[in-house]
């Protein structure tokens, strides 16, 4: 009997040793670069987690924020087009609370300029950032809880082990090449590649008129059209805009905010026009308020790309009704650099009025 209790003790002690060993490994390798930058680090597409490390480990003067509409930009392209030293922090499906929180962390770490791809739908009602299950504020703030959840993690231990293996010179090249095809999260060797499309990406296959029209048909089909307005509520969206965007901007008057409404395909608004007019009204009213409010702030430059007919009416530019191709990404950067579509503070609703006229007049191409 005594012997078996000894075995139980051995098992529990050995387990504790393993747990501490894994935590030590995570601390030393630090895959997220939360404690120290590393030349050998790999990067992950899990941006809500990865951003916590990027903000700590990278040097930057400009940050780039947005949703999936901004996810494929390369930092190198942003730097070249705008003459800045940027850090991309865009997160797919993110809401304004998450974006504002991450931006605040980046500004606190020295960002002097923010480029913010602002969708209307980021302002839908969502949990408070402190209770957000998808973004750990503790990790960003490096609280005891955040650091413990990072160090005492089997998933992170797996990543640490892989990073460690990859640092062995004879394995380095092979594992670096194989990493993107292995079930590891930290697989990218260049920070520029985070969520970027491969350089040999076949644009025509993923972005074309056929796909865009198919997406339009899908979202406007009677059983699914209610989803067009899901979560949209004017009062709540205004409240979140005031808290998350205006609040952040007001707290940092020394930071320049280049905010842009992205060039969705015209079908995004036409879908609302045909299948959910109430949602279109909310979008129009909300963005009118946003334009009026933002253009009054001295540290904000608002750009509206939604009414650029040459792009938004060419459905070959899109993979669905909103996501545009990397070709349009490049145009967005050039428009930001030139200020060509900057909203005039004296006529904040001019581009919106133009968009409304376009939406009203547009006829969907029949197959």
């Amino acid at each position: 009997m005594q012997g078996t209790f000894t075995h139980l003790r051995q098992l529990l002690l050995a387990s504790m040793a393993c747990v501490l060993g894994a935590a030590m490994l995570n601390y030393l390798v630090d895959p997220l670069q939360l404690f120290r930058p590393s030349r050998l680090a790999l990067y992950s597409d899990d941006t809500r987690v990865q951003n916590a490390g990027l903000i700590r480990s990278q040097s930057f003067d400009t940050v780039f924020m947005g949703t999936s509409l901004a996810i494929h930009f390369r930092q190198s392209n942003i730097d070249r087009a705008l003459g800045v030293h940027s850090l991309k922090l865009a997160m797919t499906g993110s809401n304004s609370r998450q974006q504002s929180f991450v931006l605040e962390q980046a500004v606190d770490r020295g960002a002097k300029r923010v480029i913010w791809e602002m969708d209307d739908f980021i302002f839908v009602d969502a949990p408070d950032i402190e209770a957000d299950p998808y973004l750990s504020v503790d990790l960003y703030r490096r609280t005891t809880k955040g650091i413990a959840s990072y160090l005492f993690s089997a998933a992170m231990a797996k990543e640490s082990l892989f990073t460690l293996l990859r640092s062995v010179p004879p394995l380095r090249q092979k594992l670096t090449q194989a990493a993107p095809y292995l079930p590891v999260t930290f697989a990218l060797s260049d920070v520029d590649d985070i969520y970027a499309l491969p350089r040999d990406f076949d644009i025509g296959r993923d972005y074309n008129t056929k796909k865009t029209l198919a997406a339009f048909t899908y979202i406007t089909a009677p059983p699914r059209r209610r989803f067009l307005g899901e979560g949209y509520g004017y009062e709540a969206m205004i409240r979140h805009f005031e808290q998350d965007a205006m609040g952040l901007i007001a707290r940092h008057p020394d930071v320049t905010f280049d905010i842009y409404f992205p060039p969705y395909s015209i079908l995004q608004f036409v879908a609302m026009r045909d299948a959910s007019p109430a949602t279109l009204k909310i979008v129009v009213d909300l963005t009118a308020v946003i334009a009026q409010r933002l253009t009054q702030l001295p540290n904000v430059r608002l750009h509206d790309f939604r009414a650029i007919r040459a792009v938004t009416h060419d459905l070959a530019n899109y993979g669905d009704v909103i996501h545009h191709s990397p070709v349009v990404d490049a145009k967005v950067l050039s428009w930001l650099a030139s200020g060509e579509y900057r909203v005039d503070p004296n006529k904040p609703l001019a581009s919106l009025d133009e968009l409304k006229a376009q939406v009203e007049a547009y006829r969907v191409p029949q197959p």
Partner: protein
Amino acid sequence: MLFNSYPFILLFLPVVLAGYFWLGRRSNLVPVIWLALASLAFYAIGNWQFVALLLISIAFNYGVGHLLIVAKLGLTQRKAALALGVAGDLVVLGIFKYASFATENINALFGTHFAVHILLPVGISFYTFTQIAFLVDAYRGQVAAYALPHYVLFVTYFPHLIAGPILHHKDMIPQFERKETKHPDAHLILCGVIIFAIGLFKKTCLADGIQPLVALAFEARSPSFDQAWLGALAYTFQLYFDFSGYSDMAIGISLTFGIFLPVNFNSPYKATSIVDFWRRWHMTLSQFLRDYLYIPLGGNRHGRLLRYVNLMITMLLGGLWHGAAWTFVAWGALHGAYLCVNHAFNALAPKIPSVLARPARIAGALLTFLAVVVAWVFFRAVSVAWALRVLHAMVDPSNIVFGREEIAALVLIAVYAALVWLAPNTQAIMGYDHGNRRVGETLRAGRMRPLLLYGASLVLAFGILGIQSHSEFIYFRF
């Protein structure tokens, strides 16, 4: 409360264990009451609003059971008491589990707009079935009178309360009555901790680890051929490791109290036929459905055709037991059809020559696995239409993506497949013999002890490190 949570592992379980054995020095009954109270506390944490329902259900079934066992009733009265008990259970289950589903269908059929919003009490399907079995056996005269604390513990026993295994009173209550279980047995505790560690690892590292891949098929608007297959396979493995992980944890926890729970999984994906699959998957449910539904319906005693009808009824109801949705009905119907085909094949096909036995078994295993994966698509999908969309993608090889993400997913799927097909299962590793109440004889004899101990310590460590903030078991929602 979740088994895969720090409060459970570091606080609840040690306190309940310590209290159980401390009280066990003084009495044979008080530890049973302690364990029953601890089980109710376990249930109440997170489900407090359903504790009253659980207690009412226990009181009702114990009362009816008492009538059947103790009172001198005539045959008609006994039948009436049984009917009352079973109907009462099914009415409660129907209201809480199926009312919304029924209302939705009535609305769809008649264009009405009735609305029913009833929360599903966690574990209701499990404790209802457990007690129906008790009532039926009481009616058959196969039950001795049980003391109330033992009966309450039998229903609420926290290792099984929420997601099984479905326990049988004849198996459990005699164990609760034994004095020996109230004294700590170091060997059983050691084996229990190891089995728990394996289950925890299965859940937190394996099931939760592959879960993101499921989205490839089930959250994409139009998955490609490879994405649909990868997602369906990912779910196939996730469900197995999730549920068998839970069952292992339940067995392990119970073993630390000296109580043997029945085995619920026996490497189901190694099955060589669908009949074999159902002897290996969720075994306690299969046994329940066989003993209390299929055989009472007539089983195979009234000819081949009625046997198939009984099989279909059993599997349809088995599907519906899992959840109130047409997807579960479709899943049950598919498995019913599979079983009918399997039995018909066994009856009609000529005997396979011995030289072809091995290839036939391999072909049977592959075909069975394929059939099971197809059925899981219905089990997982949010609607029948969505399931058909995934299945359509699975038979359309003209649309293949096979990019970076899909290749990485394929590597992970291959690792899981190797684990499922090549690794021994938990009871084989631990020599767990529920029937003979034996476990870990190899460990006791000292053979392979260091390997098992240090392997288990690693598995336990990674199981603990894999705990995420909140990761429920899939079967909690049934």
